[in-house]
């Protein structure tokens, strides 16, 4: 039986049918009919953010921590333009989110009406797909298709622009199962190529798994299969920033994160390997460093769901187009069926070499004196929260890299960070999205004071919905990563990279009714962290740290993996003219 309803009701009905339980949003003139419908039902919770950018990041946090799509609802014009950063962030990191925007009524489109913007035009390059729905009859089918597109293949953000008259008009509601789509990306990999890879794995002397966010996106089964494959083969494994948690940090074969601020052993293994197995990563420039010197002696396999990722930057000797879980299942089966062979002698030598690299202990630091080192703060945070099933978000900068280096992730979907776009201001709203999805879990946002201030208004949201998110701010009163690059590249001229006129974060927290904690003494750090953990509500933790600490290891721009900087002594003239133009 067909159901007739208004467009606004269709929106809410479609969200319910798609299993959505929370929407992050901000009302305005062009979405009032939808807000009216939200008001009259109880299945979907609405979280009122304080800025539309935060709604999108919260939806990203929700999506990344659950594997389900996140939903944001914003008004036309400024509501939509404020969502652009979040959309771009989700596109770069392949996060499935659905953004609903209000639009001026169809008969006013193109007239420069109040709060009109060409939303589908503006967001076309920063969404996986977007729609302007001009007919209520097509609205529900479009909503269902949007979920399908966001979640299928390489996930990503989608946007549906809904003019106000379309929300008021009535039409027939189409059920999700009635919607036909031609968009069905291939998930099974080519068995012949998978077999070729299995053969190469049998003889490889110096293999390495290089995994990325695609493993997380593929779902929990992919992480499970990855663990099985690593255990069965005994190969070492490293991961990109986006892939942390797919393989446990406590696992025997774990080399740590790779890339620009990756671990020495991980980068050296990438450089010297003879078989690199890329699973759901995309040879980002943060990973490869200088491309013509990237892992020069290896054969490379690349498993990716997106054909445009394969051979984009690095030539793949074993290109495998497909979903990570499907491909890993086949790869394991083929490899087992062929007799579970590896080059034991070669592997033993390879592990011997890796042990030597590990002995460099590239993350070592000395905490001495009365000033907290940021590394020490994270080491203590790790020690005191390890037993929790915790969710970590970050902002962007030095603290983000230190968090990736010093915190261990045992499971997928526990690590929410802005990788591709590098969006300062991502972490706080993302932590709100995570906490909404996991009300009883420990959710910590590791932040820098500058990033955190970019979306500080969300303290109001955290208070309103009693979300006990812990904001762990490593406060160096600097834009630390900018300052580090100015030190290395620009003759120590620190142009606009210090945080002048910072607020008193404790008073700021209290102004919103939250708890603020200030800690500047390494001796009281543990107690202060415990106080943060035991407090029931949101906490703003102002951790005053060493102001001029640099983040190492570091592959300087324009350098290959085996020319890492390990500490301050090695930084003089490290970046040459050719590298200086890179970011």
């Amino acid at each position, binding site marked *: 039986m067909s159901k007739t309803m208004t467009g606004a009701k269709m929106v809410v009905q479609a969200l319910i049918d798609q299993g959505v339980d929370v929407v992050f949003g901000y009302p305005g003139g062009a979405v009032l009919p939808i807000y009216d419908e939200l008001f009259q039902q109880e299945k979907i919770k609405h979280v009122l953010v304080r800025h539309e950018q935060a709604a999108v990041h919260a939806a990203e946090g929700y999506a990344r921590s659950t594997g389900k799509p996140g939903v944001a609802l914003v008004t036309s014009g400024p509501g939509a333009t404020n969502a652009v950063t979040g959309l771009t962030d989700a596109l770069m990191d392949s996060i499935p989110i659905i953004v609903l925007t209000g639009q001026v009524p169809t008969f006013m489109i193109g007239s420069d009406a109040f709060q009109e913007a060409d939303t589908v035009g503006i967001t*076309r390059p920063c969404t996986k797909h977007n729609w302007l729905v001009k007919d209520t009859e097509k609205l529900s089918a479009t909503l269902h298709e949007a979920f399908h597109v966001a979640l299928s293949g390489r996930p990503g953000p989608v946007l549906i622009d809904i003019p106000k008259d379309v929300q008021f008009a009535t039409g027939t509601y189409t059920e999700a199962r009635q919607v036909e789509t031609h968009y069905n990306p291939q998930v099974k990999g080519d068995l012949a190529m998978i077999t070729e890879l299995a053969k190469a794995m049998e003889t490889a002397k110096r293999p390495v798994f290089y995994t990325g966010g695609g493993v997380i996106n593929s779902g929990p089964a992919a992480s499970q299969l990855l663990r099985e494959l690593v255990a069965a083969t005994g190969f070492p494994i490293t991961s990109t920033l986006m892939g942390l948690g797919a393989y446990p940090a406590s696992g025997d074969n774990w080399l740590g994160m790779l890339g620009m601020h990756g671990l020495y052993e991980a980068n050296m293994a990438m450089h010297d390997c003879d078989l690199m197995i890329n699973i759901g990563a995309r040879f980002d420039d943060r990973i490869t460093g200088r*491309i013509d010197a990237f892992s020069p002696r290896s054969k490379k396999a690349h498993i990716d769901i997106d054909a445009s990722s394969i051979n984009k930057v690095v*030539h793949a000797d074993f290109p495998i187009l497909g979903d990570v879980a499907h491909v890993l299942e086949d790869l394991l089966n083929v490899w087992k069926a062929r007799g579970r062979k590896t080059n034991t002698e070669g592997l033993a030598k390879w592990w011997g070499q890796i042990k030597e690299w590990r002995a460099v202990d590239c993350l070592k630091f000395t905490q001495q004196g009365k000033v907290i080192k940021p590394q020490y703060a994270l080491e203590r945070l790790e020690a005191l929260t390890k037993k929790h099933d915790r969710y970590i978000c970050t902002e962007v900068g030095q603290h983000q890299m230190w968090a990736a280096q010093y915190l261990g992730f045992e499971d997928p979907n526990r690590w929410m960070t802005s990788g591709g776009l590098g969006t300062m201001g991502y972490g706080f709203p993302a932590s709100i999205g995570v906490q909404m999805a996991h009300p009883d879990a420990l959710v910590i946002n590791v932040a820098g004071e500058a990033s955190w201030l970019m979306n500080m208004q969300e303290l109001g949201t955290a208070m309103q919905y009693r979300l006990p998110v812990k904001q762990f701010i490593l406060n160096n009163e600097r834009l630390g990563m900018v300052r580090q690059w100015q030190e290395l590249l620009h003759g120590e001229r620190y142009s606009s990279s210090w945080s002048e006129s910072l607020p008193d974060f404790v008073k700021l927290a209290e102004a919103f009714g939250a708890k603020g904690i200030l800690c500047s003494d390494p001796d009281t750090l543990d107690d202060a962290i415990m106080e943060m953990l035991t407090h029931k509500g949101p906490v703003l933790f102002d951790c005053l740290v060493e102001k001029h600490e640099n983040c190492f290891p570091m592959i300087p721009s324009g350098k290959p993996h085996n020319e890492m900087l390990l500490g301050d002594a090695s930084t003089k003239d490290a970046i040459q003219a050719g590298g200086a*133009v890179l970011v």
Partner: protein
Amino acid sequence: MSPLKIKKGSTSHSAYDLRPSYSDTVERHTLAVLVENEPGVLARVIGLFAGRGYNIESLTVAEVDHQGHRSRITIVTTGTPQIIIQIKAQLGRIIDVHKVNDLTVEGPSVERELGLFKVAGKGEHRVEALRLADIFRANVVDSTLESFVFEITGTPEKIDAFADLMRPLGLQEVARTGVAALSRGAV
């Protein structure tokens, strides 16, 4: 030379070097892109080329299947083999794109373009223009005592050649459709 002593456009030591080590040769390819005839689909295709810095030498688009709601976009583009592969893969990611065919590598194909040429002149020039039009099998679709509009169909090279000949004879305006192309033989 820039202050950083890097040649303009040089990327040989950059993390962004997309040039494959195996071939730097720039090739010309004709792509047939079958798309859902939705509003904005052309903008998606053009936006992709602009956003990622690919070349468009020619582009034509028209609905080819009214019932099936399909349009065909024919794009002539240039790039190294790796870039061409990237362009095809990126086009394939667009949700509204059903199919991407590279007519340049998928066997023989025919390419045609239509041009309209307005040539004004008197006396010997006028006679010569008419004579050349006849050789090129161009049709006269408009005529006054002082001008012709010629319609010519052929490969882009043929139309280029015709334009070169018309220029000294009083060529005033040119309109060209861009390339339409199909593979030879049955599908």
